[in-house]
């Protein structure tokens, strides 16, 4: 058995760094609290109930939708990734990070979030989280989002500086698996975020400042989706770090293969350029390119199927060590009473359905049935809002007590919270997906619209019921979180949970090259050049011709 960290006997982060990480996580959940409030209004909208008129400070449905998307999908995920991956990298390498970079990252993100939020609440950025030109937001919105991305780069720099220091002290050694997974996540994101950065800094920001006369709608949405697909890896991979690196231990078992785990992460670095599958119904993108992208998108299911195998086997090891017998008996013995395990195993179950529906969306011409319908909304509430967000909650159930050195307030209620959230999202996704197959459009204030189809009514009501249960469950999560933080009962929690692997990492041969991130980045750049090169060259220089549209 090999531990997945450098110094298994114990390492604790300097207090000031632990504090920065704590504030990252607290800020992330505060952002989630605001974001989900608006989610409730959207869920009820599908049942024909318009409660947006009662929301304070928000004029329209679409303003609320923009807040919901920007806060939950962009800000929460960035700040949680920044905090959690800093913690796992430091623990994995057994060394502190650069404190200045960590603090700069946090404050950059806070300033960026406040700027973007002010623009939205002022009604100057009702452009949803995709902000497709020619819809134009106030420049503070674009600058705010840029700062959020810059904050992830600052965290990335802190991780890479730490890796360099560790390598100097441990020449020839394999990177500890926990740190490898965390750093791979940020290396992937560094490559993937370039499209969004170019879109905002080169095209949209100068346009919103009036420095250039027009925008290029086709090129800017292509750059958006260049990042817009792999951003989901950036949401998912910190959760994979927990599933591979912590859950096996928490459930009472161990991870089997070191190599398989590293291969899965490397594949995500390689498979960045598939964003065109969000543009299957776009004119202006050839069908040959679309089919090639469908092929490459299917390749991504491979690392996720590897994860299904690797993580499920770890859970089986746990169940059998805990005394589970038979073909399925082990599944009942994986410490369901631990809310962190319960929440994350339920998140895995949701990911089975989320993954299958994602495969449907990515299935080339099958996309014609579901594109921009509520089917997509159902899909990403199974993935982002459950696989990722419910795992965040599960991680919080050990991490907040660890960071605050407090006992978790009511583990039993926390289990109930995880189960009720899972139930809520299953109902919600069922409603939205069946409605979507009947053609119910997403991103549309149907409750005040002037058209409807009879087949949308029942799915809409089911969606609203599920969404309301999700909202109530998240409220319970915040009660548990706040009660834990405010509790006077201090406890000493010395270390974070981390697993061991049955198979040790090989010291030589091809496996050792998995640790050479620069190889995988070069390879990724080659694949990007093949998939995006011809299209982008064709659209250069950009046509700065579309006038701004701000009638929202």
């Amino acid at each position, binding site marked *: 058995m090999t531990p997945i960290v450098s110094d298994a006997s114990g390492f604790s982060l300097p207090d000031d760094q632990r504090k920065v990480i704590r504030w990252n996580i607290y800020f992330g959940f505060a952002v989630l609290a605001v974001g989900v409030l608006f989610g409730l209004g959207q869920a009820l909208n599908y049942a024909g109930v318009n409660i947006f008129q009662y929301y304070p400070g928000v004029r329209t449905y679409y303003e609320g939708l923009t807040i919901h998307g920007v806060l939950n999908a962009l800000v929460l995920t960035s700040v949680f990734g920044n905090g959690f991956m800093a913690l796992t990298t430091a623990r994995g390498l057994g060394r502190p990070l650069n404190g200045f970079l960590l603090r700069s990252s946090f404050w950059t993100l806070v300033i960026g979030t406040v700027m973007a939020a002010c623009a939205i609440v002022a009604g100057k950025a009702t452009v949803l989280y995709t902000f497709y030109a020619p819809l134009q937001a106030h420049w503070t919105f674009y600058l705010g989002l840029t700062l959020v991305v810059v904050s992830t780069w600052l965290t990335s720099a802190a991780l890479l500086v730490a890796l360099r220091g560790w390598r100097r002290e441990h020449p020839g050694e394999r990177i500890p698996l926990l740190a490898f997974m965390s750093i791979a996540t940020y290396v992937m994101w560094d490559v993937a975020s370039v499209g969004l950065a170019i879109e905002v800094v080169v095209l949209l920001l100068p346009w919103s400042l009036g420095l250039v006369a027009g925008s290029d*709608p086709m090129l800017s949405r292509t750059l958006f989706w260049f990042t817009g697909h792999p951003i989901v890896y950036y949401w998912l991979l910190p959760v994979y770090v927990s599933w591979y690196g912590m859950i096996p231990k928490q459930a009472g078992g161990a991870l089997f293969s070191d190599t398989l785990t590293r291969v899965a992460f490397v594949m995500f670095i390689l498979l960045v350029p598939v964003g065109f599958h969000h543009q299957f119904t776009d004119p202006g993108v050839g*069908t040959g390119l679309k089919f090639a992208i469908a092929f490459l998108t299917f390749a991504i299911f491979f690392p996720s199927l590897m994860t299904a195998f690797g993580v499920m086997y770890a859970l089986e090891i746990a169940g059998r060590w805990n005394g589970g017998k038979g073909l399925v008996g082990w599944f009942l013995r994986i410490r369901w009473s631990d809310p962190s395990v319960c929440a994350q195993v339920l998140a895995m179950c949701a990911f089975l359905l989320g993954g299958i529906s994602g495969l449907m969306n990515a299935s080339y011409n099958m996309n014609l049935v579901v594109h921009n319908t509520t089917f997509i909304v159902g899909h990403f509430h199974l993935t982002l809002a459950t696989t990722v967000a419910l795992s965040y909650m599960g991680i919080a159930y050990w991490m907040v007590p660890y960071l605050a050195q407090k006992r978790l307030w009511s583990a039993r209620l926390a289990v109930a919270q995880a189960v009720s959230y899972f139930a809520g999202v299953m109902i919600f996704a069922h409603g939205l997906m069946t409605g979507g197959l009947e053609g119910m459009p997403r991103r549309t204030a149907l409750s005040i619209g002037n*058209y409807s189809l009879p087949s949308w009514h029942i799915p809409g009501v089911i969606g609203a019921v599920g969404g309301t249960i999700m909202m109530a469950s998240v409220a319970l999560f915040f009660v548990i979180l706040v009660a834990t933080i405010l509790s006077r009962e201090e406890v000493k929690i010395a270390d974070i949970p981390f697993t061991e692997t049955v198979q040790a990492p090989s010291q030589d041969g091809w496996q050792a090259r998995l640790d050479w991130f620069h190889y995988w980045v070069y390879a990724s750049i080659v694949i990007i050049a093949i998939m995006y090169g011809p299209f982008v060259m064709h659209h250069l220089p950009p046509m700065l011709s579309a006038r701004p549209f701000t009638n929202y």
Partner: protein
Amino acid sequence: MERYEERFLIAAGIVLLLFLGALAYSAFAMHIVLPSAHGMIHYSADRPLRLVLRKTPPFDNPGVREVSPGRYEVVIVAYAWQFVPDEIEVPAGAEVTFMGTSADVIHGFFIPGTRINTMLIPGEVSEFTYRFAKPGKYLLLCHEYCGQLHHTMHADVVVK
């Protein structure tokens, strides 16, 4: 254990390849095609798209035309927040080619119950050919957020 690992990965690869094979069959043998590049309309900040469209055939004259017996062409221009024309009548069983574009922001073009589903992007021409088998009233709706009154943007397609 490593043997299981290997077998699982081979099985996973085979399943994905089978799925891709089915997709290729539906696309190339059954001709269920996605929208693709059908030409561009050139405009600039000085020559706004709205004005350019008025002089660009076929978008200078939106509407329904019978181009030959049993074949129809429907030319549609999307504005925030209406389709022009917003009432379209075509016969059942006819081969209908929709040609659409946007005059301002990105719009959607979606008829539930059919496979007509495309984006309308300023400067790009979208084309879709379809045969309505059953007569009835269909809903054409904009399914991309396009500003304040997005939820009112739709048109009626009557198939006789």
